[in-house]
């Protein structure tokens, strides 16, 4: 049987192969990444793009959620102050309506309620980072202005009924704002400002039309309940955000684990492969040096 006399060339080819294999394995160990080019694992490379996309979306949502949570918390505490102011106004009005006060006390109550009106209006005009939070979409316009031309004075809403939502990565929509019209100047008896303006008008003269004042006080009470209800909407949003944020964070952890498993090199496996490759290389080198030595040619035996 004839053999290929240039077998050493083939062995050197095998040696090159084993060296390039070692290079690849060393690169994997030093970078910690098992997939350094698309062709190494096309499916995993594609999957990796999708996983990174989801992870980044989750990350971005967590940041957005922190931003809007503080805004919603400002809205919540503002509405808390409004509720306590209104509660005080109701109790002042109730005491003025029981008919035991002299006109100057009634006037002073009128002034106090007028003060509360100013306070509530300024609360309704609260801004967060320069944007009015109860103005619907018109966040650069002062939402509530009062005209004292008539008696009772008239407080007008300049915003709109626009609702903003934040989309979570899982497709949930979370309400981000409650327009001022819905809280303070709802239809019928749910109008905070008209109730307050009416009460101020009722008490400024010192003489009380009890029936009118009682009815206005009741209207304020109803409006107060309505504000509390709207505050629940804000609280719900905060709860939803926190729940969504928790869900997204745990999802992100899972995705990151999946992505790490997909892309990171398994040190134990790579080390074993490297050690095998090194053994093979040593063996090849030995074989080459044995075969290549002079004593292996028949010519060296000829006399």
């Amino acid at each position, binding site marked *: 049987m004839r053999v290929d006399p240039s077998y050493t060339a*083939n062995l050197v080819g095998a040696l090159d192969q084993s060296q390039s294999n070692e290079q690849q394995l060393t690169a994997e160990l030093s970078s910690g990444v098992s997939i350094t*080019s*698309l062709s190494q694992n096309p499916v995993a490379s594609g999957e990796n793009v999708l996983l990174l*996309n989801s992870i980044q979306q989750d990350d971005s949502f967590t940041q957005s959620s922190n931003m809007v949570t503080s805004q919603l918390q400002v809205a919540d505490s503002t509405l808390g102050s409004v509720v306590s102011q209104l509660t005080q106004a109701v109790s002042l009005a109730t005491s003025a309506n029981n008919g035991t006060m002299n006109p100057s006390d009634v006037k002073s109550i009128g002034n106090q309620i007028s003060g509360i009106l100013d306070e509530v209006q300024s609360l309704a005009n609260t801004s967060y980072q320069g944007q*009015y939070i109860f*103005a619907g*979409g018109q966040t650069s316009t002062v939402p509530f202005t009062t005209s004292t031309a008539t008696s009772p004075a008239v407080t007008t809403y300049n915003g709109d009924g626009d609702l903003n*939502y934040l989309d979570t990565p899982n497709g949930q929509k979370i309400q981000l704002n409650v327009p001022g019209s819905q809280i303070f100047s709802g239809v019928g008896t749910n109008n905070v400002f008209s109730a307050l303006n009416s009460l101020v008008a009722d008490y400024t003269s010192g003489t009380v039309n009890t029936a009118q004042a009682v009815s206005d006080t009741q209207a304020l009470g109803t409006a107060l309940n309505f504000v509390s209800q709207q505050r629940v909407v804000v609280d719900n949003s905060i709860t939803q955000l926190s729940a969504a944020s928790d869900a997204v964070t745990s999802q992100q952890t899972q995705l990151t684990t999946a992505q790490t498993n997909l892309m990171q090199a398994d040190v134990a496996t790579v080390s074993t492969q490297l050690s095998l490759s090194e053994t093979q290389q040593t063996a090849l080198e030995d074989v080459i040096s044995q075969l290549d030595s002079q004593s292996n040619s028949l010519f060296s035996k*000829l006399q």
Partner: protein
Amino acid sequence: MGTISSAFDMISGALNADQSALSIVANNVANANTPGYTAETPNWRQNDPIQINGVQYGDGVTETGATSMRDSVLSARLDQQQQLASASGARLTALDSVQALFTPDSGSSSSTAGDIGNDVTSFFSSFSSLEAQPTNNSLREEVLTSASTLAGDISNAAASLSSQRSALDQEASGVTSQVNSLTSSIAQLNQQIQSTSPNADAGTLEDQRQEDLSQLSQLIGINQVKTENNGLAVTTTSGQLLVSESSSFQLTSGSVNGATHFFVGTTDITSQLSAGGGELGGYLTARDQDIPNALTSLDQLAYGISTSVNQLNNTGSDLTGNTGTAANPLYIFNEPTQVAGSALGMAVTMTDPSQIAAAGAGMGTGDNSNAVAIAALGNESLMGVSNGSTPTGFFSNFVSTLGATVSGVQAENTAQNASVTQLQTQNSALTEVNLNDEAAAMSTLESSYQAASQVFTMLNTLIASALNLGDQTTVA
């Protein structure tokens, strides 16, 4: 009856034959490392016996020259496999540079730069962030920054692909002159072989022709057809004649629509060469198929994102309450006119972040409905793509397909190289000079030469004593 002088003839013929055989061995050893050299073996022929008085006597041996140990079917098979392996090798080299532009992101923060998949996500995420505070100027700036990163990375990738394509074009056109010098050399050798050795193996001339053929096989895909008088015709794999006996047909190249095309005479054989094999086939496949495919995908991505985002931003209402008009459109990216070239031309034209239309048309500036709509584009099917994948899904699909192509060519190349090695081993076993065989032959010839000279000496002594008729001194 045989005579002493006929024995002299026979033995001196044997000494001559041994000498010629030894010189063949010496030539083999001398050319042991010459590329393309085919080991030669001496031809021994028993001389015709002579008949004297009805008795047959042998008449010695003649050495009739060397025969090259060649298997033309095997070497043609090797050439063919070499063409396939060179094609996939050249294509693989080109594809490796292509895939290097889209190295997978390991997920650590240091590796995120330049990854188009991440850029797409960041861009749409910047609109998600804008949902939280639609009037926030730094968030608006962030949108423009991520848009420029996305546009920059896509157009850079497209520019790199284009320059890789023109580099391949140059390499391909460089092959022409090598092919031409090889085909004219083959034609010349054909002529020499046909005139010197029309009926038998032409030895070194055929070695040279075979070497030229295997070099040509590295470059382009060819078919070899034996013609009469030991000539050879060479055609491309699709049948275009390159060498016919003693004439060769030059391959010329010229620019057609910005790409180098190849001609024999006036026939454009570019697509035949592309499918034929050899380095040129690999270059052309990468130039005309793989890189354009990658560019088309990037174009689709760039076109889909640019047009859909521009369209929505244009219909929304910006921070000053304006909506885009025909004269002053609110475009974030420069609006592509067609899919082709969109990737290369992708750029951000908007400079003022307040022009980002986060609010719906006619809504207050605090509205975020348009930002929600644009952010949602990231999870909707990419405009202009029929399979309904999202921009990220489209990119993911693109990298998987590219990776699969590269890995397929890699596997193909490995298999073809293994097969080339196998054929080469078979061929080398037959044609290469085996020094052990030569040493053995040398040793055998040496013994037979020594034996023949001993016989000669004895015959000499014998004939001397015959001439002296028993007297030992007259003739020595």
